[in-house]
């Protein structure tokens, strides 16, 4: 009897175990999921667009990087990683891995997208970030939760390095964030644009350096900026620049007044004046350069492969004395430049330059700043001090006055318009924006003003004639263009006082002529905006 029952019992236990194995698959516990967080010590609001962009400077600037290892002997399904920064960013999912095998490691870098409002942050704070790792079937107790703190500087603070103090061995390590100075160069700030416009018209009575590409025109403009600051009695003054520490990083943290604050406050330090010059030069379509040397910075520009510089702090101030004329300041700048290149060629790492447009192309872009009527009023006062005249009429000034040709589009979905392409939400449409150019039916601009779509309706028989007509109109405005026609596709460059504008468009047959819909952006932003431009281009019907 026993000889029959015993094997039956063994087989029955086996069957039970086998069945149980399908019922009880076993759950991974949070203790078996190893999470390592590598975090940034500082976040600078001025550079928030760099932190948000995985492509910017090859993804070097992130909030944190999580290494997650599955130490269980089970595969995890749909592993989700999310994070939040209370008060700034709500729970945001970073990644979902379809499966995570035993022993597998998942690496998740976090590039946080902060709201533009953080550029209004005027005090520093310590913030907390929370990270959560979960997977299908994880109970509440299994979910892995991590948190860490970081220092959130105010919008004016510039941290010179993010390298841990024990790792710093060279001068370049101490100034590792040099490229981020481009975040404080704000050519798209409406106040800077307004100031530049006034400089070009009221002080220089016309300026065409970006069109002619002649160094003498560039130098004239550079000297013009200097004259503008000197004539308004702008003075040299210091701001706070003190060493600060977090757990791992020790760096000098400099308070940098934004170009708009330098203009309206009528005072600036060397790096602030350099940012102001770079902003104005960029707004005028010239390639700005900031030269960094030990204890000092000065601005200049690059044209036809040659570098130029000016000593912007030559304005000094009546209290300091020794105010230089523009010619003297330029001479001093060029002398410093000679030393700069000599030292740089000898391999001295303390002599570096920041090519603003080059770093812009690598994703280091400036913050968005809102228009401000009070600041415009301050610019008007400064302009009046140059010439005693009234400031230029600003076509871009927001206005509720009658006769405005601006039409605000509602913030809803992408919509197809009578303008032959799909207008993204939030973009502004200006009908007949230039009365002197009746063929320009409308212009549609992106919220950041970098991408523009122009719709021309030209009474012409073919595309070539249509473009000839546009070229003639452009000539009347001191603009020129180069283009290539390929079927109904037209690609080109437009040169004007505002710089070079890269565009692509389609020519459409319309009753009574040709409609050209062209979309583009200034050349320095074309790479950055290429996805947006392609989307618009593909929607042209």
């Amino acid at each position: 009897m026993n000889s029959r029952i015993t094997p039956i019992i063994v087989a029955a236990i086996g069957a039970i175990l086998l069945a149980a194995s399908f019922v009880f698959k076993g759950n991974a516990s949070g203790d078996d999921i190893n999470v390592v967080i590598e975090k940034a010590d500082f976040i600078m609001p001025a550079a928030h667009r760099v932190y948000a962009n995985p492509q910017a400077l090859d993804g070097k600037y992130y909030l944190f990087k999580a290494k997650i290892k599955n130490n269980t002997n089970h595969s995890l399904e749909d592993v989700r990683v999310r994070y939040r920064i209370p008060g700034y960013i709500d729970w945001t999912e970073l990644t979902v891995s379809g499966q995570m095998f035993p022993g597998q490691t998942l690496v998740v870098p976090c590039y946080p997208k902060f709201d533009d409002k953080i550029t209004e942050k005027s005090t520093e704070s310590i913030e907390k970030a929370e990270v959560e790792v979960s997977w299908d079937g994880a109970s509440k107790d299994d979910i892995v939760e991590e948190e860490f703190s970081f220092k959130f500087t105010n919008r004016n603070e510039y941290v010179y390095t993010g390298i841990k103090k024990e790792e710093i061995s060279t001068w370049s390590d101490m100034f590792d964030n040099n490229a981020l100075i481009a975040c404080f160069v704000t050519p798209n700030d409406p106040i800077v644009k307004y100031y530049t416009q006034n400089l070009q018209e009221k002080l220089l009575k016309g300026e065409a350096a970006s069109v002619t590409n002649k160094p003498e025109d560039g130098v004239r403009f550079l000297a013009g900026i200097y004259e503008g600051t000197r004539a308004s009695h702008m003075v040299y003054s210091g701001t706070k620049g003190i060493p600060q520490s977090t757990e791992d990083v020790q760096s000098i943290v400099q308070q940098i007044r934004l170009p708009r604050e330098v203009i309206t406050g009528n005072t600036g330090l060397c790096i602030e004046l350099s940012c102001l010059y770079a902003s104005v030069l960029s707004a005028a379509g010239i390639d700005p350069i900031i030269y960094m040397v030990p204890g000092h910075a000065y601005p200049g520009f690059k044209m036809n492969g040659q570098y130029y510089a000016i000593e912007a702090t030559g304005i000094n101030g009546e209290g300091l004395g020794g105010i230089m004329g523009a010619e003297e300041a330029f001479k001093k700048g060029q002398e410093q430049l000679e030393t700069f290149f000599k030292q740089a060629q000898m391999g001295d790492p303390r002599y570096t330059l920041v090519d603003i447009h080059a770093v812009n192309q690598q994703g280091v872009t400036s913050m968005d700043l809102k228009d401000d009527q009070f600041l415009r009023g301050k610019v008007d006062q400064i302009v009046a001090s140059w010439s005693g005249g009234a400031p230029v009429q600003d076509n871009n000034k927001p206005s509720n006055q009658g006769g405005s040709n601006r039409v605000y589009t509602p913030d809803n979905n992408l919509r197809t318009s009578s303008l032959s392409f799909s207008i993204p939400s939030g973009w502004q449409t200006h009908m007949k924006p230039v009365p002197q150019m009746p063929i320009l039916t409308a212009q549609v601009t992106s919220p950041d003003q970098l991408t523009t779509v122009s719709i021309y309706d030209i009474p012409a028989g073919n595309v070539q004639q249509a473009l000839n007509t546009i070229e003639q109109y452009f000539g009347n405005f001191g603009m020129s263009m180069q283009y290539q026609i390929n079927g109904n596709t037209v690609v080109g460059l437009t040169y004007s006082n505002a710089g070079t504008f890269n565009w692509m468009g389609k020519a459409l047959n319309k009753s009574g002529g040709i409609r050209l819909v062209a979309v583009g952006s200034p050349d320095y932003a074309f790479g950055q905006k290429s996805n947006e431009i392609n989307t618009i281009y593909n929607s042209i019907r």
Partner: protein
Amino acid sequence: MKTLNNLLAICTLLLASIGYGQIQQKIDMKIDAVGDAKITISMTMNGQQWQTWLQSVGNNPAALKRDIERSMPAYFLDDFKLDKNDMERSFTLSMNAYGVCKVDKRGNWIIDTDQKNANLTELTSHKYMLVSSPPELGGTIQQTYTIEFPDEAKDIKVDKDAFGKSVFKFKMNNSTADFNMLRWAGALLLIVGGAWFTKNMLQKSS
């Protein structure tokens, strides 16, 4: 493989800027069964290149390590080993890179190349080669990458991601995945019990 390109840029940028003729660089990436990789970079230089390399990063391996870590944010790196051969003016740098492969929602393993239309050559069913001369380094460096997949990898193919960049996609079953003790013990006992019972029955009938 942008992250890899960054790494190479750090190793060679100073040499490229000096322009002492074309430099050959070999990069081997051996992927294991859990999607991590062993990366080995080797390079031989002439006398001038060697001196420049030593002055920049060769004599400061800690800075080299830090720069490589910062330039490859998509990976976690450890176990750096730098072997210099002063007699032959060559070096070999190796490191472990974690999280090189990812698994998508359909269970495909994926490695990004971060290059559009990457010119990939299939050396064997599990080994691919990519030769490039990055224009950002002035075309002075020829880099030869080899990517070796683990034996467990199946159906390896070159595909494109949503941005049109070349990616490797493959299937791989993890040998340690879901090893279920309960199931194996149950099956064993079932077989033993069944065999025992059959044996007893046969003995009885004979």
